[in-house]
């Protein structure tokens, strides 16, 4: 279902970093901690301590990944692969991407106090969360 977007990933300048982080985000928390965040730096275009842009795909009325580890200073980009417009909106409304139409994206900076749980304002059954793992 997500496969058709691979070629789009390749066009991103930080494709390697995104792929590396997407893989690390799938690891259990314990595993990620044991590496002390080093996995984030494995991408060919990511500097040792540089901020990372994390990619969340919205596809099939779901945020993927549904749980994402981030650090303050990073950014999160949501890209919509559905026909229907979506948003990524903090549960308390404190941050909001606004409407993201098909094949459009929106980016939000990660802050230490950022509300972690979010949903789609248009389709409230779509929910996900971010985990702020360390202060940079």
């Amino acid at each position: 279902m997500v496969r058709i977007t691979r070629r789009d990933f390749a066009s991103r300048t930080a494709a390697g970093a995104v792929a590396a982080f997407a893989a690390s985000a799938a690891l259990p928390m314990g595993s990620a901690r044991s590496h002390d965040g080093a996995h984030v730096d494995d991408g060919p275009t990511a500097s040792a301590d540089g901020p990372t842009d994390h990619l969340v795909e919205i596809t099939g009325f779901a945020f993927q990944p549904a749980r994402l580890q981030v650090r303050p200073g990073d950014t999160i980009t949501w890209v919509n692969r559905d026909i229907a417009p979506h948003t990524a909106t903090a549960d308390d409304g404190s941050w909001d991407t606004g409407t993201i139409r098909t094949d459009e994206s929106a980016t939000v900076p990660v802050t230490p106090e950022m509300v972690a749980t979010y949903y789609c304002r248009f389709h409230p059954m779509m929910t996900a969360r971010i985990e702020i793992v360390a202060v940079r």
Partner: protein
Amino acid sequence: MMKTTAVLFAAGIAFALTPVAATAQSAADLNDLEMAHVAYTADNIDIRYAHLALAISDNPTVRAFAETMIRDHTAVNEQALALLAELDVQAQDNFLSQQLLENAEVIIDELSGLRGAAFDRRYAENELAYHQAVNALVGDSFIPNIENEQVRALFEAGLNIFQAHESHAAMMVESVN
């Protein structure tokens, strides 16, 4: 087909079976361009219901749902029109599109006479039943019989959206009851 028919009846979409049987018309026998016309018609009917809800209802849940229906069904229709243009074909009117429109007129007349909580309940119930009926039609009768792969892909994407709407409508029904 039996299952689809049962669901359509359960939804109050009173398909006139007698004339249908007399002319041997069946949803599964429609060609791709006729199915596209049905889907486009079904989208526009739900957009009309939504505009009625925005005109009558003060319930924030109902209004938000209606706005989402307009936004999503408009997006699907734009994709459908783009694909038809790409394929250089036009959707074809057919018996099922006509039946959907006739039934929609009855429901719009009914909804137009309701106000307040009575409208909200009936709108919510109809949205759930309508999406259930259309999803059964698309999933059981249309998608297995579509010949063009691009058309099939669009119907599958559309079904994914309308199934989400069905879940959303179920939440709305609980909210207004």
